[in-house]
């Protein structure tokens, strides 16, 4: 009796993990479809048949479509995985790199680049965004290293930093010329269309190495959710893990937004969508977050390009308009508590 009960219980867990793997595979398939679709959809409307028959105009395809899709994949997965990890490390479902002020730091850095170097220099903007994202992250990490820093302290510090940088950005807008203000606002919408191959290389360099580094820590992130003391008693070096994971998350976020602007929300919603699908085990949650984040970005971008064609709606706006109702829908429909 007891043995058969144990067998049934263990089998139920096996079925659960099997279901999760299947859902991750389904997400992957969906993402591949979305990527293919993104390659052929655009304001120069080339149907799938045309692409198959004659191929796309080489320049449009290789210099616009492909980089755009790749950048979308990178940005979406980077933001979502960064968000999932931040939520685990701070044990807070509200957290994301944005909550820590990293995005506001990036926004301020970009605005500073625009005002100092002029809107023409993309590098000044990206460089400013990246440096300030990293400065913010390092500052937050500094706070974390202080002895009594609880996850709550970190979130508070992040929110405070967020206000500081928002005020800084407002000040720059107040001081800037009309053209500069326009550029700052445009950057803050988020945009994938300006991605060049060099941008992609740099963003990939910041995002891709962090993914396996975080995936390998999946079990330790699981333990962290159960509390620092318990994680430590199970062999996790808690402080080291928290610092490493936060730094990697900040790096991914900086890489994701420095060229494309603030595509907020993905860092918060991506992981929650993934959690609703595959649960809280990071062995499944992290890959699922990467896939769902990338999917959200690509779908939003496609809609932004086609909905009001020939006008393009910046992706940051679409993600919010699309993502918020979608997210509420998921929250309302869920059958049970998940966090």
């Amino acid at each position, binding site marked *: 009796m*007891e043995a058969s*009960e*144990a067998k049934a*219980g*263990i089998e*139920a*867990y096996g079925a*659960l993990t099997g279901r999760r793997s299947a859902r991750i595979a389904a997400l992957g398939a969906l993402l591949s479809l979305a990527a293919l679709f993104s390659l052929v959809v655009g304001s120069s409307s080339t149907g799938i048949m045309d692409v198959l028959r004659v191929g796309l105009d080489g320049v449009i395809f290789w210099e616009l479509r492909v980089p755009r899709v790749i950048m979308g994949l990178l940005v979406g997965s980077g933001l979502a995985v960064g968000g999932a990890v931040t939520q685990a490390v701070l*044990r807070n*479902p509200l957290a994301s790199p944005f909550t820590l002020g990293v995005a506001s730091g990036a926004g301020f850095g970009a605005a500073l680049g625009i005002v100092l170097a002029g809107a023409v220099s993309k590098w000044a903007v990206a460089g400013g965004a990246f440096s300030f994202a990293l400065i913010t992250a390092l500052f937050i990490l500094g706070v974390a290293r202080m002895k009594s820093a609880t996850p709550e302290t970190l979130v508070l510090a992040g929110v405070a930093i967020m206000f500081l940088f928002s005020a800084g950005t407002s000040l720059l807008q107040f001081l800037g010329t009309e053209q500069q203000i326009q550029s700052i606002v445009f950057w803050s919408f988020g945009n994938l269309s300006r991605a060049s191959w060099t941008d992609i290389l740099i963003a990939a360099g910041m995002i891709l190495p962090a993914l396996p580094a975080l995936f390998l820590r*999946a*079990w*330790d992130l*699981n*333990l962290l*959710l*159960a*509390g620092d*003391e*318990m994680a*430590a*008693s*199970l*062999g*996790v*070096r808690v402080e080291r893990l928290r610092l490493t994971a936060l730094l990697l998350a900040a790096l991914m976020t900086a890489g994701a937004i420095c060229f494309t602007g603030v595509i907020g929300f993905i860092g918060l919603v991506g992981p929650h969508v993934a*959690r609703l699908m595959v*649960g*809280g*085990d990071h*062995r499944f949650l992290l890959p699922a977050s990467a896939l769902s984040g990338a999917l959200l970005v690509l779908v939003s971008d496609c809609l932004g390009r086609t909905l009001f064609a020939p006008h393009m709606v910046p992706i940051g706006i679409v993600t919010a308009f699309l993502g918020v109702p979608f997210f509420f829908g998921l929250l309302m429909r869920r059958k*049970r*508590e*998940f*966090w």
Partner: protein
Amino acid sequence: MLTARNIFYDYPERQVLRGVSLSLAPGEVLAVLGPNGAGKSTLLRCLAGALSPKGQVELDGRALESVPPAERARLLAFVPQHVPPRLPMTVFEAVLLGRRPYLSWRPRPQDLEAAWEALSLMGLGELAQREFSEISGGQRQKAALARALAQESRLLVMDEPTSSLDLKHQLQVMTVLCGLAEERDTGVILAVHDLNLAARFAHRVILLHDGRVEADGPPSEALTEESIRRVYGVEVLRLEAGAGTMFFPMSAASGTA
């Protein structure tokens, strides 16, 4: 197997442990008793390696801090006083966390079996697939205990493992712990508030008062009306009933702490 020699621990504003010594043998159930603020939790956290006290704590003759965390986790399981109210996973997954010291990526069949055994020892088999956040406080506490049992360590350090449990489940948990001590030679040290529970199940009790050991011995010797008055400031009546010793609180003693 676990020894503390003359350990001191200070929080910035307050001295908590002032020279505590104790030892725990395999198969022994040791209850740490004492009023609120006596230093029970601090003592257990020092013994589990969560805090680094002054003085020596030794695990199998080795200084505790020199044992690598991953190895320590296979020797000693610690259940903190506070169980997180929410965890985004099922009860079974929460218990499976206890297998972390043995896992690389995918849990092996023996990990799943150990987790299941721990779960059913705690009588949680039926809740295995429920979300951890949905079950009751007492059930969460038992799940945390099951997680420690799944660790299959030779030592269990538990901070008030019965604090959220009703009468029946208190008995159930204590019976399981005593069973492990007897059958597997597991050493168990736990903080408790309930004198009767300690007197009935523990092989030995330590009575802690203001960071010092006030009494150390079998319950019948360490828990006297006199020692309890001194430590708790409460007059108790000690009754020898058929099933064992019982303490009946009478009134707060005058002129003491």
